[in-house]
């Protein structure tokens, strides 16, 4: 499937778009620049003044990553309908965003918070809880950055390029303009990325089925493929897949905006209503995601030959598109990796600076000093991710990313409970105990299951599989309730001033 020779037309188109966004990335530091350009709010949150459109492109570009474009069809190709849990997940995430994120935005805006760790510190005045939330964020987002590299690696390989130099070069360029322009760089590049992905997907879902004999034929071919594999999966869910499907969707939706990169996108918005309007408009990307998922079935109809499932999308494009459009599509995916990788490294850098450097190393650090620390940290984070991908097996990043989802959702009570009446009952010791139990239990279960996202419980002879992250979150909350009942009002009451 993947040509071992270099397709010069495709490569030329690819390089053109890559250069275009590189110029945009460096130019971005001047785009809507604020008065106090040395402040961390400027570098790390783009001055907190992104309106509805910019936020829409930024969060869309940041949440629907290159890895998504590769991994969701790969999963559908491998397991059929079960892989479609991504659809309810990315639908249900928006009511959650609508109800929670404007409140969180207001709390952050009023108090100058930049990270989830800041929120927790401001509200509970507990350094341990702040550190727990910050460390979870950094650890969960690191493998996510590494996976963006995997997305780029797949398309670079599909272009016929070999070796590690192209990937390294691309990532160093990204690191440099993120260093200089901060969040403005991915915000600006996201316009190009999202438009390109929209074009590619709309063309693909019209053109590919037309070439392959229509959706009905595509799905029939896929059905036969799953049946010949033994019928463990198919175009519909088996009853034993119902619970894992639903719990993966819900658990992922709760986790999605606890990540540093998505929260950074929210905090960079200029008003609470900007966030709310985005909860209404962002589902447009979910339509796109559902269509992208369909590419997995098209892989069967096109009879692509792949070494690994993640090659399905590139192989499909290589086989069915003219080479100039293949180049366009691959650059869309590669640029689709740059935007989230940049925002993720900024989010991680903000956490390190605010909740570790400022909290433990230099409490007197100035706003400009914070920005300087964050910029260097963003470089370190990206180099770390690159080294991981070059020297460790890809599976390692995949496993860690999966565990990251289990971990990040454990910060949900600490970040969100204090926003709502009943949740204000909890204090830091209870939330910290719940977090610790959730992390330990979730990790232990995931490792015991050989790093699978779902855990099988046998109840009355019947086996029910549940998303490990969601189960651990339930235990996390129960532990928090028990500790709160016994520890009572030790610790600071959530600061009403803050909310």
């Amino acid at each position, binding site marked *: 499937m993947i040509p071992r020779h270099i397709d010069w037309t495709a490569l030329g188109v690819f390089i053109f778009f890559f250069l275009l966004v590189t110029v945009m990335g460096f130019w971005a530091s001047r785009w809507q620049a604020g008065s106090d350009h040395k402040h961390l709010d400027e570098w790390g949150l783009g001055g907190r003044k992104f309106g509805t459109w910019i936020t829409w492109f930024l969060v869309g570009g940041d949440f629907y990553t290159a890895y998504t474009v590769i991994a969701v069809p790969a999963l559908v190709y491998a397991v059929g309908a079960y892989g479609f849990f991504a659809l309810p997940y990315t*639908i249900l995430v928006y009511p959650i965003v609508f109800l929670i994120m404007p409140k969180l935005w207001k709390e952050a805006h009023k108090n100058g918070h930049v990270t989830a760790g800041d929120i927790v510190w401001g509200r509970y005045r507990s350094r341990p809880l702040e550190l727990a939330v910050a460390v979870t964020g950094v650890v969960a987002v690191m493998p996510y950055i590494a996976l963006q590299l995997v997305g780029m690696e797949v398309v670079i390989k599909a272009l016929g390029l070999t070796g590690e130099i192209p990937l390294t070069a691309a990532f160093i360029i990204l690191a440099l303009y993120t260093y200089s322009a901060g969040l403005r760089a991915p915000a600006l590049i996201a316009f190009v990325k999202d438009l390109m992905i929209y074009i590619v997907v709309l063309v693909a879902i019209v053109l590919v089925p037309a070439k392959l004999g229509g959706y009905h034929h595509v799905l029939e071919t896929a059905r036969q493929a799953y049946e010949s594999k033994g019928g463990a999966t198919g175009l519909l869910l088996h009853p034993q897949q119902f619970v894992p499907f639903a719990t993966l969707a819900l658990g992922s939706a709760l986790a999605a905006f606890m990540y540093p990169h998505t929260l950074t996108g929210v905090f960079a918005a200029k008003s*609470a209503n900007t966030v709310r309007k985005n909860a209404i408009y962002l589902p447009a990307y979910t339509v796109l995601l559902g269509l992208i998922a369909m590419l997995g079935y098209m892989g069967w109809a096109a009879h692509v030959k792949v070494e690994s499932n993640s090659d399905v999308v590139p192989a499909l494009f290589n086989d069915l598109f003219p080479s100039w459009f293949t180049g366009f599509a691959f650059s869309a995916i590669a640029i689709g990796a740059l935007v989230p990788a940049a925002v993720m490294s900024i989010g991680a850098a903000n956490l390190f600076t605010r909740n570790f450097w400022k909290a433990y190393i230099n409490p007197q650090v100035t706003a400009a000093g914070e920005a300087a620390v964050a910029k260097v940290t963003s470089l370190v984070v990206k180099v770390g991710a690159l080294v991981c991908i070059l020297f460790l097996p890809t599976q390692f990043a995949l496993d860690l990313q999966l565990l990251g989802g289990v971990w990040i959702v454990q910060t949900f009570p600490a970040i969100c409970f204090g926003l709502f009446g009943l949740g204000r009952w909890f204090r830091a010791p209870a939330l910290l105990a719940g977090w610790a139990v959730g992390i330990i239990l979730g990790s232990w279960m995931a490792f015991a299951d050989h790093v699978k996202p779902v855990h099988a419980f046998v109840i009355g002879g019947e086996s029910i599989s549940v998303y490990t992250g969601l189960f651990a979150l339930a235990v996390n909350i129960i532990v928090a309730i028990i500790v709160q009942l016994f520890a009572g009002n030790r610790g600071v009451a959530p600061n009403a001033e803050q909310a």
Partner: protein
Amino acid sequence: MKYLLLLPFIGLLWVPFYNFENPYFLGLPFFYWYQFLWIPITAFITWLIYRKHYAQEEEQ
């Protein structure tokens, strides 16, 4: 009115509601287009609530 936002959770998390092949629509089994259909429905419900409760909120 905010409770309307529970509808997509019920509609999508209770899989037996939609794990069917028929009827087909645009070549897709019910399972798929039902899920797609919830995208505009959820956005519409959210927009209704926004318009009623928040649209007047001053931009800060």
